[in-house]
């Protein structure tokens, strides 16, 4: 056992004993999990279980009350500014509403990390921006538009193009399919799956979208009452004996049952 554990590759994400308190409210009470390379993990939990807060703690935006977050071998809350800077170039984050810079065009938004963190020639940057937009499934004519001129789905794609600009090994997505119509949302799921399969990126996404969970996700982590309630494949998680998990997934089976009866 010991030798097997030593031979196993180091996890990309290692979260140990995260505790988060806001005043008297305890949001997380010892959250721990590990994620290996090249997996697509979904983080679920009812509203108020602190999914977004956990994401912010993992990427170094909000300091947890206690606990350790290690990304790609770097302890985020112990690292020096230079170490944190170095690891930040190796992961990407897509915020819920895109957080695109509104004064820049889509192409300029994607070019920001490339111009700031690499010494590539302008022509190469332009070509790379075009590649990122294509990888995110955006049409070429979207490049010159401003974020305010894009539809919700295109804004999310532009945001993911910026998040993968530096070819991160790890990508965090906060509710990537919220506010999208089902067709666009499924297209987005396929896009994320392709990033994992083709580029070998590890993805952790907070989501509420059952279709995403049931179709593309490798592993589901359920947060409940400040702890990890369940962790495993969708099949394993649905089998967990918990009221909230049963109701969460039964919404889906009920709908399907109703449709089946109707036809």
């Amino acid at each position, binding site marked *: 056992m010991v030798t097997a554990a030593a031979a196993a590759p180091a996890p990309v994400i290692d979260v140990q004993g995260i505790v988060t308190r806001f005043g008297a409210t305890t949001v997380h009470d010892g959250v721990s999990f590990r994620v290996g390379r090249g997996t697509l993990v979904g983080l679920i939990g009812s509203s108020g279980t602190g999914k977004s807060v956990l994401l912010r703690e993992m990427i170094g935006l909000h300091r947890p009350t206690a606990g350790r977050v290690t990304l790609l071998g770097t302890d985020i809350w112990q690292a020096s500014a230079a170490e944190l800077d170095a690891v930040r*170039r190796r992961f990407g984050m897509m915020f819920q509403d895109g957080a695109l810079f*509104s*004064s820049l065009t889509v*192409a300029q938004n994607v070019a920001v990390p490339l111009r700031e963190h*690499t*010494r*590539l*020639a302008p*022509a*190469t940057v*332009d*070509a*790379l*921006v*075009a*590649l990122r*937009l*294509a*990888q995110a499934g955006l049409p*070429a004519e979207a*490049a*010159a538009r*401003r*974020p*305010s001129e894009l539809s919700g789905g295109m804004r999310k794609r532009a945001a993911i193009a910026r998040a993968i600009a*530096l*070819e991160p090994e790890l990508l965090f997505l906060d509710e990537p399919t919220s506010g999208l119509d089902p067709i666009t949302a499924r297209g987005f799921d396929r896009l994320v799956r*392709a990033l994992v*399969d*083709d*580029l*070998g990126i590890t993805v952790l996404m907070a989501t509420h979208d059952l279709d995403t969970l049931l179709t593309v996700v490798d592993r589901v982590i359920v947060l409940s009452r400040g702890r990890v309630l369940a962790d495993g494949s969708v099949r394993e998680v649905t089998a967990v004996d918990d009221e909230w998990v049963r109701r969460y997934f039964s919404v889906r089976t009920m709908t399907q049952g109703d449709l089946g009866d109707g036809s």
Partner: protein
Amino acid sequence: MQETPASPWFHVQTQAGAATLRLAGDWRLAQLAEIETALSGLALPPGTTVDGSALTRIDSAAAQVLLRALQQAGCGLLGEACAWAGFDAAHARIVDQVRRHVAASAPPPRPPPRPALAQLGRQALALGSLLLGHLNFLGATAAACGELLLRPRQLRPRELTVQLEQTGLNAIPVVSLVTLLIGVVITYLLGLQAEKYGANIFVVDGVGIGATREFAPIIVAIIVAGRSGAAFTAQLGSMRLTEEIDAIRTLGLSAMQVLVLPRVLALMLTLPLLVFVGDVASLVGAMLVAGPMLGITPAAFLARLREALDISHVLVGLAKAPVFALAIAVIGTRMGMTVGRDTGAVGAATTSTVVQSIVAVILLDAGFALLMQALEW
């Protein structure tokens, strides 16, 4: 067998007339600038084999640079004129993924530069439509006012009171301080000249007329443009961003009645009052300097003021205030109501409001000066 000078990432091997480009090591974005420099000027004979068996890693950015270099070296757009060999399955998948996108990924066209004359014309048109829009909004405000007169119950006393407090009461300290100092400065400058001729007492005439007729109205209007005009744009602009204005309309309420009129009316009521505060404060300032500097006692100052300062000067100054207020409030609310739907636009609109309001106040004041001269007031 012949080899080019080795770089850590690739070398070209020529054996029996067949060339092989052997890739090696880490091809990653972090080293891409160096890789690109090493690749520049790469030339390959047709039918070269690209061998990836010694590659340890390749990411899609590096794959794209490789494909671009191969294209320049004569391998075709997607490297199809070369043979590919020895790639690890994961590396081949990344190269394939990039190849699929290369055809679709023409670099974005750069916007053409605009000639200066066309730029000037465009800006002139933009200014014209801005002014037309303000005029339009002024008309809409007047119409809303008319509606309010017909149906006085539409008045929102609560909102009006809040605005009266914010634009009027809260502005009193800054208005008093600034106009007091202006009174001090004018008296000092006039006093320096008047002392030479022994005409000390006439300083009171100058300060009295100048402050009440011109300086207090202008200074107070500029302070209010910076305080309240900017606040109107920022408040309404962020309400527009969060779709609150749309919500007001959807609930069957009139945005003019709920948001615009209370602000316009409040400012038109408070600005004359603030100008009066400014009049008094600047005269107090003048009196403070006149004693020690010119030997005019407060009693003498007030007696001279009563003789020299005709009430018409004060009234002209106060009469300008509601007009300034209307301009500031209409510009401020309209810029807020029509702000673009992104965060940068609110900041730009707020700046624009302050600049426009100050220009408008000064232009209106010049108009008043001409009008009053014609009327001989």
